[in-house]
Structures are given as C-alpha cells and as structure tokens.
C-alpha cells in the first residue's frame, strides 16, 4: 500500500519533470542550431536590415514614452524621500543610476518583448502551420538562416541602441520634473548629473540590453517554430513568447547585475 502511494507520487512528479527536461533539451538544441546558422553564410542582409527597422526604429516611440515617465516618476519619488538633505544632487544621482542601470534596459526590453516577441512568434507560427517553413526548405533556403539568424542578430545589436536612447529620454524626464515641478536650478541639476555619470552605469545597461534583445528574438522564434495546429497553436505560441521572454528578462537582469556588481 505504502509502495503504491510512493509510486503514484513519483509518477505525478515524473511526468512533468520528463516533459520539462525534454523541452529544455529542445530549447538548447534550438539555441545551438540558431547560433551555428547565425555565424555561417549565406547571410540575408536584407532581412537583417528589415528586422533592425522593425525592432529598433519602430520601437522608438514606445521606448521613449516608457522611459520618460519612468524618469519622471523616479525624480518625484526620490525627492519626497530626500526632501531637505541636498535633494537636488541626490535626485539627479538617483535618476541617473536607476534609469541607466535598471529602468531603461528592463522596461524597454519588456515593452519590446510585448511588441516584437509577440509579432515574431505570430509570424513564424503562422508560417509554420501554413507550411511556409517547409516551403522555404524545399526552395533550398534554411529557415534558421533566412528567418531566425537575422532576427537574433537584429535583437542583439539594436536593443543596446534603443536603451541608449531610453537613457537620454529617461534622464530628460527626471530633469523636467526636477526643474518644472521641484524647482531645481537647471545648471546645478545638469552639473550633478554629469558629475555622477559613470561609464559602468551605461555599459551595464548596454550589456543587459544586448542579452535582452537576444532573449526576445530567441523566444519569438522558438515559440513560433514550435507552434502546432492552426490559429489556436499560434495564439498559444504568441502568449508563450511574451511570457517566457519577460520572465527570462527579469531573471537575467538579476544575474547580470550580480555578475557586474557583486563584490
């Protein structure tokens, strides 16, 4: 009797575990295959440029809006915390550090994951269920090279630029609130910002952004590639792409921070 209970217990535990290990293995294989094809010719430059535009250029408004409000809210919040004790310099510093190290990369990446990760999974998923991926192969074109490699490269390269843009806009948001709402002296605020500015803050954000860009494109491609069975399957793939990319972004955000700042 006891043994039977243990057996059922192991069985309920085992099935999801086996499933998990299998999908983890599939993901690793997918990553290795993608990387191999990303570094071997032929390269589809046109597709890469198109993806750079889609992921980068057309995300500028979203990233700008996200980071400007993030910068504004941080200025407001930190002022109420530091009121009285040299608030001007403190607010400038807090805005600078939080925007460049955390808010610009993480919030931008989450927004782009929603915008681009979903679109990628939907497009590739539809191509999969309508046999367009098979059609590519029969036309002597490898989908990994033609579809996935340009997306992965574009995500990896363009996200850092988006985040640099977000840094500027976010700090500007803090400046607006500081000057027009909190009544700081513009010259002092700018001076304080420049004084505290460190290369490490910027590189942190940029390194994170590159990793996040890769994750977004990877999850978009992978979930699209695995989608099965018509419209419902594509819908599922889209959801999975956004959710998995978002979670991975938050996890890797911590890991990269620890790697760069743990003493």
């Amino acid at each position: 009797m006891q043994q039977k209970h243990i057996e059922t217990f192991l069985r309920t535990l085992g099935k999801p575990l086996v499933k998990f290990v299998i999908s983890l293995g599939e993901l690793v294989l997918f990553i290795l295959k993608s990387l191999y094809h990303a570094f071997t010719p032929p390269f589809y430059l046109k597709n890469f440029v198109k993806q750079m535009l889609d992921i980068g250029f057309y995300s500028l408004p979203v990233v700008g809006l996200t980071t400007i409000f993030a910068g504004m809210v941080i200025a407001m919040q930190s002022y109420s915390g530091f009121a009285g004790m040299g608030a001007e310099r403190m607010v400038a510093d807090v805005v600078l550090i939080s925007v460049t190290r955390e808010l610009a990369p993480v919030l931008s990446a989450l927004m782009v994951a929603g915008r681009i990760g979903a679109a990628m999974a939907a497009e590739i998923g539809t191509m999969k269920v309508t046999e367009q991926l098979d059609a590519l192969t029969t036309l002597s074109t490898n989908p990994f090279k033609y579809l996935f490699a340009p997306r992965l490269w574009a995500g990896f390269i363009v996200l850092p630029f988006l985040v640099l843009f977000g840094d500027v806009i976010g700090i500007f948001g803090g400046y607006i609130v500081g000057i027009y709402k909190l009544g700081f002296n513009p010259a002092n605020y700018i001076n304080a910002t420049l004084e505290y500015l460190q290369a490490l803050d910027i590189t942190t954000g940029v390194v994170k952004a590159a990793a996040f860009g890769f994750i977004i494109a990877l999850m978009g491609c992978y979930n699209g590639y695995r989608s099965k069975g018509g419209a419902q399957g594509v819908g599922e793939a889209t959801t999975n792409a956004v959710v998995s990319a978002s979670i991975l972004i938050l996890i890797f955000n911590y890991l990269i921070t620890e790697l760069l700042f743990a003493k």
Partner: protein
Amino acid sequence: MSETKISIRDLHKVFGSKKVLDGVDLDIQKGESLVVIGGSGTGKSVLIKCIQGLLTPDSGSIKIDGVETVDAKESLKKDMHSKMGMLFQGGALFDSLSVWENVAFSLLENHHAARDHAKMEAIRVLRQVGLAPDVADLSPSELSGGMQKRVGLARAIITKPEIIFFDEPTTGLDPIMADVINDLIIESAKGLGATTLTITHDMASARKIADKIAMLYQGKIIWQGTVKEMDKTDDPFVVQFVNGCAQGPIKVEV
C-alpha cells in the same frame, strides 16, 4: 529498361505510439507520374516529407538517382532540394512577399539573379500557368484559392526541377478549377520531362494525371498498378477506396 529515379525501401516512421509508415517500399521511374492514394491520415504527407528530407524517417532507405538521402549531410540535402519542386496543399506562399517575388524566390535567393531579370522570368512562368502579368505585383492574400495554387505551381517549376511533388493539388477547388490544375500539372511535368509524385484522395485527379497508382494503407503500399489495372483489380481495399464505399475492409477511424 527505364531507370529508377526514386527508390524507397522499408521506410518506417512513428509518431508517439502511432506507426505512420510501417515499411513502405516504392519505386518511381524517371519521367513517370506516380499518384499515391489513400485515406486521410494514412501517412501520405509524411511519405513525401520524408522523401524531401523535411522529416527524418526512423529507419529505411530513400535513394534519389541512386544516392542515399536519409541522414545525408546538409549540403547534399541542399543539392537535392535544388532538383526538386513542391506544390503545397495550401499553396504555402510567403505572404510577406509579392506574387512575383514568391515565384522568383529561388532565382533571387539562390541564384542571385538581378531583380528585373527575375521578375521577367517570373511573369513568363506565371503566363505559363495561365495568370496575367498584372497578378505579379499583388500580394498572395489577394488571390483566390485556384490562383494561389497556380502561383504555387509556378514557384515549383521555375527552376526546372527533375522531380515535382504535388500535395493534394485539387483539394479545396471546384471541379472545373481542379481539372484546370490537373491539365497544368500534366503540361508542366511533360514540358520539363520531370518525374512527379502526387498524393491525393481525389480519384478524378488521380485517374487523369497518373501513369501509375499506388495505394497506401496502414503505413504500407498495399497495391500498385496502372489506372487500367486499378479498374480491373478485385483487391477489396482498392475497390472500396476507388468507389468510395463506407462498407468494406477499410475501417474508418472515427
């Protein structure tokens, strides 16, 4: 003595616990038009996907021009694909590209042809399948089902392949359009001298385009012969399928 273009021996493919292909043996002669018939879900699609290397069989051998293609290297598979064309069931046109870019895809991406030259070539082949040049700049989603099939056919034949696969070419078309597509298939295959493999459950289409018919049932080729032989055979499976009877040895899984 004609030479064998595609030779399949003891092909097996299992999905989960379902044996989809269970020892398929099949030979296709050069220049021949073979039609594989069989009910839905009998593994017809899996068979042509295995031959094209889109799926890897669990065991068995597929030789094309005498060269083993199962577990072949990527570069060999690529060479092999350049000899083949395929008309997909739903057309499988790339909806991010215009009609002519679809047709000229191979020329543009693999042969790096100049765009205006590729476009002219695409329009020529589109004409061959009965489409007017002004279709070239449309997007695939603007076309009717029959037109999409024609564009798919144009894309399959533009590189003058030695082997062409047709996956249910007439499914979803009205009987007249189906017959038009049948004629186009015969014409383009004859014109190129290509070997063709068609899978279908449309008997009218099978009769029209087949030199030889093979029937797939429960993962095996259970019968093959010419159309005349098919009409004379007393094989109960073939008789039931050809006449479309619910009663007979073939049990429909519901």
